C-alpha cells in the first residue's frame, strides 16, 4: 500500500491513526509475510488511540525554548512522586486513584469526560458518561458511593441564527445531558453530591460533560494478580453494535456530518443492569474469588482484554462465546463494540463456578471468553478461524512519538479603563443573576443527593450553594469524605498557567471551607486540538502549573483524564482544566457550612485581595476580559488553607464561604441569604471599592466567628481583615464613608434564584 492509500485506509476505517503509525503496522505485517485481518487493524487502532495511549501527553512538545518530553510524567506524575504521600494507595495504575481513608478502608476516585457523544446525543452521551465512570470505580474493586458532574454548555439564549449547521441548540443539549445524569445516577442509587454548570460561547458546538465517581473498598478487596491459567469472564449486558469507534471518534474534531458518520459511536445505557453488576461485584470481592477486574469502556473488549493480557503475557479469546444482542457476523465489531454495562473479571478456574453462580443470582449474565497464558500473543478465534494473532510486544511497543508544535507567542491582553459605576447594588444583583453564578437549584433537585443516607453536608445548604459536599460513609466512624471541584475557563482565555493554578486553589479552598484536608486531586483536561500551537502551548503551561501548585499544596494527583480535539465549526473550546479534590474530615460533626448563623457574630475576610479582575465576572458583566488574571501565592496560599483548618478545628468558625466568581460581593450575599440574616460591612481604604468588592483573587474566604481572639490566633501572621457583623435583613457595604451596596436578602436571593420581578 502506498502512503496515500494508508492515510485513506485510516480515515475511511475511522482508525484515527497517523501515517507514521500506519507505516509501522505495514512493516510489522510485512515481516509476518501476511496481510492484517480487519480484527487486527481495529485492535491496534484501539490500543494506539489517543484515548487509550495518551499520545499527546506522552509525546514531545516543541517550544520556543526547545523540546519538552512526556508532559504527563514530567509535571503531573512528577508532582505526585515529589510529594510521595504515604496515604496514596494506588496512583495512575488502575481505572481510579486510590487513597487511604479509615482503618483498612480506602477511597477510590475517578473523573471522565464524555464530550463528543454528548454533542451528538446529549441524553445517551451523559448516561454512558456516568455509567462509564461508575464502572471505573467497579474496575478497581470499589463500591460507588457518590457522583460529581461538571457540565459546560453554550449560553442557553444563544441565537438559532448563529448556530453552525449540524449543531444542536444549547438548551436541548443542556436538558438532555441533565436528564441523562439524573436517569443513571438516581436509578443506580448513587448520590450526585457536587458539581458545577458553566456557560461559554466556545462550548456551543462542543459541550463538556465531566463525570466523577467516588468509591470505597477495603485493602483486602484490592486484588490485581491475574495469572496465566485464569479465566477471562465477561459479565453484564449483551454486546451489540452500539458504540462503534467511540475511542477513535473521541480524537476527531466534530463537524457538520458528525451526526451521520459517528452516531453509532454513542452507546445506549441501562442503569439497572449496572446496579445488578455492582451487587454481584461487591459479593465477589468480599468472598475474594477473582484475581482481577477491569471495566469495558473505550475500545470495548479490545482494550480491556489486551491490557489485562499484557500483565500475564498473553491470551486466547473465543469470540463465539460473547453473548450478542442480535446476530453480528463481523468479528471486529464484537471485538471493539462499546456496549455498556460490561465488565471483565479474571477468575482462577477453581472459583469459576462460584463466581458464575453469584452473577446468576443477581440476574446478570457471565460467560468465559478466554484463558490467559504467557504466549506473548493476543490470539482471537471466531467461527473456527484464527482472526487475530498479534504479538503483544508489537501492540504495546509502538515506537511512534507524537510531536506537538507548541511554538507560539501568547497574545497580550489589555486592562479595560472605566470609572467606578455609581450603583454597585445593581452591579451585584446583575452578577448574582449571571448564568455561571446563579442558583443551580433546579438542576440539583433533579439529582438524588441523599440516597444511601450518608450526605452530611449537602450541595445546597439551607438556601445557599455549598462549597463542598461531605459524606459520612461508615456507620462506626465520624470520618468524612469531602468532595469539591475547581475550574475557571474564563481565566484560561488570559493565561492557561494561572487558570490551572486557580483551579487547584479553588478545588482545595472549597474543600477546606467545610473542614476538608489531606487533599488528593484529579486533573481533567478538556482542550481544543493540540495541532494548533496556541492550544499546545496552553496545555504545556497548564501542566507546569499543575506541578507547581500540586507540590505547593502538598496535593498529589491520583488519577486524571485528557480529552483533546474539542473542536467544532466555531473553533476550539476555551481551555478547560477541571480539578476535583478529595479531602477528609476527621469528624463530620466539626464541618462548617456557608450560611451565616447568628445575629451579632463578626465577619472576617481571610486572604489577600489584589486588583485581579482579569477574567472576572465583574468584567464579564460589562463585556470585558481584561489582563490582570488572579494568581496564586505559592507560599501564602497553603499557609492560609492550613490556618483555616486549625481555625475550624478550634471551633472558632461558625460559617465559611470561599470567594470565587463575583468575589467578596457574591460570597457575602450568598452567605447572608442562605442564613436568612443580613450584614453590615466596611471595606478598607486603598483600593477602588468596586475592585475590592468584585476582585477574584484566590485563596480567600468569608468567615463568621463568635470568638474573634481565637480566630485571630489561628491566622497570626496571615492576611485577616475584620469586615463587620451579621445582623438585620439587609446586606450593607460601606466604603470611604459612603454606602456602596444596600440590598435586602430577599432581593439578593431572588436575583440569584433568577426570580423575575
Amino acid at each position, binding site marked *: 500500500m502506498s502512503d496515500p492509500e494508508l492515510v485513506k485506509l485510516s480515515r475511511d476505517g475511522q482508525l484515527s491513526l497517523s501515517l507514521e503509525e500506519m507505516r509501522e503496522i505495514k512493516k510489522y505485517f510485512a515481516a509476518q509475510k501476511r496481510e492484517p485481518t480487519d480484527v487486527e487493524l481495529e485492535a491496534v487502532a484501539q490500543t494506539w488511540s489517543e484515548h487509550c495511549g495518551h499520545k499527546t501527553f506522552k509525546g514531545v512538545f516543541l517550544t520556543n525554548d526547545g523540546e519538552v518530553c512526556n508532559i504527563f510524567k514530567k509535571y503531573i506524575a512528577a508532582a505526585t512522586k515529589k510529594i510521595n504521600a504515604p496515604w496514596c494507595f494506588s496512583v495512575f495504575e488502575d481505572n481510579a486513584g486510590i487513597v487511604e481513608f479509615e482503618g483498612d478502608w480506602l477511597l477510590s476516585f475517578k473523573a471522565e469526560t464524555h464530550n463528543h457523544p454528548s454533542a451528538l446525543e446529549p441524553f445517551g452521551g451523559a448516561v454512558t458518561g456516568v455509567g462509564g465512570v461508575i464502572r471505573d470505580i467497579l474496575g478497581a474493586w470499589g463500591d460507588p458511593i457518590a457522583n460529581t458532574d461538571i457540565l459546560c454548555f453554550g449560553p442557553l439564549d444563544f441565537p438559532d441564527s448563529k448556530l453552525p449547521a449540524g449543531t444542536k441548540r444549547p438548551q436541548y443539549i443542556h436538558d438532555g445531558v441533565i436528564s441523562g445524569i*439524573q436517569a443513571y445516577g*438516581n*436509578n*443506580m*442509587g448513587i448520590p450526585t453530591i457536587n458539581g458545577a454548570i458553566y456557560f461559554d460561547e466556545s462550548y456551543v458546538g462542543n459541550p463538556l460533560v465531566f463525570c466523577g465517581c467516588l468509591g470505597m473498598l477495603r485493602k483486602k478487596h484490592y486484588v490485581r494478580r491475574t495469572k496465566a491459567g485464569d479465566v477471562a469472564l465477561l459479565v453484564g449486558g449483551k454486546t451489540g453494535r452500539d458504540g462503534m469507534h467511540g475511542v477513535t471518534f473521541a480524537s476527531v474534531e466534530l463537524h457538520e456530518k458528525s451526526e451521520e458518520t459517528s452516531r453509532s459511536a454513542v452507546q445506549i445505557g*441501562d*442503569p*439497572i443492569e449496572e*446496579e*445488578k453488576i455492582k451487587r454481584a461485584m461487591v459479593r465477589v470481592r468480599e468472598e475474594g474469588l477473582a484475581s482481577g477486574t477491569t471495566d469495558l469502556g473505550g475500545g470495548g473488549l479490545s482494550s480491556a482484554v489486551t491490557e489485562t493480557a499484557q500483565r500475564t503475557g498473553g491470551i486466547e479469546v473465543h469470540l463465539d462465546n460473547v453473548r450478542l444482542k442480535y446476530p453480528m457476523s463481523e468479528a471486529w465489531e464484537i471485538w471493539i463494540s462499546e456496549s455498556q454495562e460490561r465488565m471483565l473479571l479474571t477468575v482462577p478456574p477453581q472459583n469459576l463456578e462460584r463466581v458464575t453462580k453469584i452473577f446468576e*443470582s*443477581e*440476574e446478570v449474565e457471565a460467560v468465559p471468553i478466554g484463558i490467559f497464558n504467557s504466549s506473548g500473543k493476543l490470539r482471537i478465534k471466531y467461527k473456527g478461524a484464527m482472526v487475530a494473532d498479534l504479538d503483544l510486544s508489537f501492540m504495546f511497543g509502538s515506537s511512534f512519538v507524537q510531536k506537538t508544535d507548541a511554538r507560539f507567542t501568547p497574545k497580550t491582553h489589555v486592562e479595560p479603563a472605566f470609572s467606578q459605576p455609581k450603583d454597585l447594588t445593581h452591579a451585584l444583583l446583575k452578577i448574582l443573576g449571571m448564568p455561571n453564578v446563579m442558583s443551580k437549584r433546579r438542576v*440539583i*433537585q*433533579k*439529582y*438524588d*443527593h*441523599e*440516597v*444511601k*443516607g*450518608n*450526605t*452530611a453536608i*449537602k450541595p*445546597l*445548604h*439551607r438556601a445557599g450553594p455549598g462549597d463542598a459536599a461531605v459524606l*459520612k460513609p461508615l*456507620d462506626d466512624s465520624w470520618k468524612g469524605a469531602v468532595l469539591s471541584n475547581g475550574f475557571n475557563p474564563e481565566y484560561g482565555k488570559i493565561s492557561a498557567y494561572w487558570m490551572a493554578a486557580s483551579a487547584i486553589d479553588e478545588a482545595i479552598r472549597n474543600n477546606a471551607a467545610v473542614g476538608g484536608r489531606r487533599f488528593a486531586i484529579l486533573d481533567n483536561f478538556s482542550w481544543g486540538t493540540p495541532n494548533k500551537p496556541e492550544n499546545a502551548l496552553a496545555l504545556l503551561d497548564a501542566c507546569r502549573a499543575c506541578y507547581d501548585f500540586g507540590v505547593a499544596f502538598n496535593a498529589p494527583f491520583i488519577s486524571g483524564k485528557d480529552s483533546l480535539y474539542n473542536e467544532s465549526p466555531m473553533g476550539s473550546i476555551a481551555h478547560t482544566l477541571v480539578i476535583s479534590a478529595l479531602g477528609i474530615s476527621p469528624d*463530620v*460533626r466539626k*464541618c*462548617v*457550612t456557608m*450560611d451565616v*448563623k447568628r445575629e451579632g457574630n463578626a465577619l472576617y475576610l481571610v486572604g489577600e485581595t489584589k486588583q485581579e479582575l482579569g477574567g472576572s465576572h465583574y468584567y464579564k458583566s460589562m463585556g470585558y476580559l481584561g489582563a490582570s488574571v488572579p494568581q496564586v501565592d505559592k507560599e501564602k496560599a497553603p499557609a492560609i488553607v492550613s490556618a483555616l483548618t486549625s481555625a475550624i478545628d478550634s471551633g472558632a468558625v461558625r*460559617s465559611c464561604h470561599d470567594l470565587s466568581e463575583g468575589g467578596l460581593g457574591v460570597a457575602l450575599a450568598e452567605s447572608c441569604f442562605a442564613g436568612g440574616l443580613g450584614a453590615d460591612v466596611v471595606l478598607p481604604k486603598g483600593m477602588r471599592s468596586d475592585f475590592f468588592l468584585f476582585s477574584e483573587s484566590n485563596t480567600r474566604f468569608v468567615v463568621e466567628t463568635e470568638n474573634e481572639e481565637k480566630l485571630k490566633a489561628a491566622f497570626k501572621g496571615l492576611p485577616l481583615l475584620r469586615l463587620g457583623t451579621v445582623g438585620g435583613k439587609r446586606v450593607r457595604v460601606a466604603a470611604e464613608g459612603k454606602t456602596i451596596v444596600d440590598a435586602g436578602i430577599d432581593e439578593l436571593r431572588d436575583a440569584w434564584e433568577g426570580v423575575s420581578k
Partner: protein
Amino acid sequence: MKALVMRAPGTNCDSEMVRALKTVGFDAPLVHINDVLREKNLSRYDVLVFPGGFSYGDYIRSGAIWGKKFVAVLKDELRDFVAAKKPIVGVCNGMQVLVEAGLIPRTADYPEAAMASNSLGYRCMWTWLRVEKNVCGIAGLYKKGEVLRVPIAHGEGRYTVAPGTEKKALAELEGNEQIVFRYCKPDGSPAGGEYPWNPNGSLSDIAGICNPEGNVLAMMPHPERASFFWQFPDWTLGEKREDGLRLFKGLAGSAGGKSGRSI
C-alpha cells in the same frame, strides 16, 4: 425481632433502611426478592419492609412489576401476614409497590389508587410533614399535629384515585383515620397542593397512608434518610433531630405485638 428488608433488581435504598432498623434493635436481613419468593416463608418474620429504588427499572409503572411479581407468588402468605396484624412498611418505591400489590389503601385484588407522575417532575428535596390523626401503630410515637422534616426523592409520588371518586375516597381515608402524614408548610399549616410545600401534587397533600387496620404503612418521604441528626439540612445550626428514627422506634414497638391504635 426480625424485619425482612427485601430488594429487587434496582432497589437502592436498602443499606440506609437496614441501618435505621438495626439502630432501633431489629435483626434486619436483606434478602433478594427471588430468594423470598423461593423460600415462601414470610411468617418467620415480624416485619416486612419494601425499601426505595427503581425496582426492575420502574418500567411499565413504578413498583408495578415488583408488586405483581410478589402477589403472583405469595398473595395468600402476604394476606395472612396482614391479617395477623404484623407491620408492613413501604417507603418511596416501596409505597408504589404496596399500592400496586393491592395492600394500600386497603387489601384488594386490584389497585384502588395510583402513584402518578409528580406535577413538576422528579424532585429530591426536604419536605415538612404534618402528623394527622391516624390508626397507624407504626407512627405511634408521633403526636398529632407534630411537624416533621423528611426528604423526598421521587418522580412518581402523586397519590391519585380514579377521576370523580376523589371525594368518596378521601372521606373513607379520613373516616378510617388512614392518612398518617400530609405535606405541609414549615409552620404546619396545610400545603394546599401548593409547590414546593406539596412537592408532587398528591391528592389532599397525602404523603403517607396506612390500611384501615393500621398495620400497613406506605409513604413517599424517606424516614431512613432523616434518622440521625447529621443527615438533616440544618444540623450545623445545632439542632439534634431524629424525626425519621422515631418511626422505626414506633415500628419496633408495634412489632412487639401491640395492635394498631388511634392517636
